């Protein structure tokens, strides 16, 4: 090999590496878009107005549950936290958050159940149960319009990195990573549906496909089933880590709960 062709092939390898890097790059902060922007006008209108947003049915149920006494302690959420409109403002925008007792980040749903078992002395609510969805929707509704602000410090950093690693790891029988669709190919179509950037701005949200409200973990499990990967249980550490990474990735974007998606 002459020196000249050697340099040329080196340049070629470098160019390929650059290109590969460009494909795997994260979406620049300024170019992030909520799934809302990719929806039809009709679905956006449905979300915009409380009168037509079916997620509000859960929010109203959540308000009733917030004020209902539960458990052996005979206490309601409101007995400690008072008016959710003031006390829960911005709370959902900072979850998953680090919990010292568990020594790891917990999701909003887990936080609600920690309160139930610890303070109310009540049985934890099942994941995706009407009650847990209603309470988390009611709490998250109080953050609507506020920017997502996840606190990352020395304690939570390893979990963020675990989530980032999961997002970029190829898995399942289709051997796909989350990033391959949601970083590299957002805006294109997968079958009939537009691929969004996967910013969890509106959870729990009403999916027309589900004909009901569902949590972010339900959505993550759907995607994992789609790529034929092993699906962790609700509340599993790897799902919470992924949730943490996705919320950090969407930092500064506004909460839309309860959002509507196709």
């Amino acid at each position, binding site marked *: 090999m002459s020196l000249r062709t050697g340099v040329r092939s080196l340049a070629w390898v470098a160019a390929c590496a650059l290109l590969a890097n460009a494909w795997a790059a994260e979406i620049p902060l300024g170019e992030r878009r909520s799934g809302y922007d990719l929806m039809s006008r009709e679905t956006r209108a*449905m979300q915009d*107005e*409380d*009168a*037509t947003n*079916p997620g*509000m*049915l859960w929010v*109203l*149920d959540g308000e*009733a549950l917030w004020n209902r006494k539960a458990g052996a302690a005979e206490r309601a959420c409101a007995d400690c936290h008072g008016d959710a409109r003031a006390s829960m403002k911005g709370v959902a925008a900072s979850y998953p958050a680090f919990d010292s007792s568990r020594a790891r980040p917990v999701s909003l749903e887990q936080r609600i159940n920690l309160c139930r078992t610890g303070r109310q002395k009540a049985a934890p609510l099942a994941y995706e149960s*009407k009650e847990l969805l*209603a309470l988390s929707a009611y709490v998250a509704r109080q953050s609507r319009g506020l920017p997502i602000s996840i606190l990352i410090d020395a304690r939570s950093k390893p979990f963020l990195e675990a989530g980032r690693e999961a997002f970029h790891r190829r898995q399942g029988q289709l051997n796909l990573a989350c990033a391959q669709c949601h970083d590299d190919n957002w805006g294109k179509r997968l079958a009939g549906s537009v691929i969004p950037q996967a910013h969890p701005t509106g959870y729990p949200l009403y999916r*027309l496909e589900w*004909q*009901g409200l569902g949590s972010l973990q339900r959505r993550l499990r759907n995607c994992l089933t789609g790529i034929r990967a092993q699906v962790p249980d609700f509340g599993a550490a790897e799902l919470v880590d992924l949730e943490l990474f996705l919320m950090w990735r969407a930092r500064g974007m506004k909460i839309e709960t309860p959002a509507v998606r196709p």
Partner: protein
Amino acid sequence: MARAVVTLPAQAKRGEIIEIKTLAAHPMETGFRRTQLGELIPRDIIRRFTCTYNGTEVYRVDLHPAMSANPLIAFTTVATESGALSFQWVGDNGYTVTEIASIRVE
């Protein structure tokens, strides 16, 4: 926790066309789906929605399978006089929900 949400203007001018939006929490199970064991899931839908304005029926809908869960029904009527609008959803398995809203007409 069955509930319905009704949204309409609190006041209107006489003769004005007002828009009324209603949402009812309901699974609208079609009766055509089966469980993983092959058993038919029985039909459970809202059959009829009516709106009466001071006792006069102004709007009625018959609902059928293949309508979405938590149906959103939006319609218009003419504001004729102050009073109460009554909304009623009636369905399978004894499902009945009634909501009443008042309007002031000037």
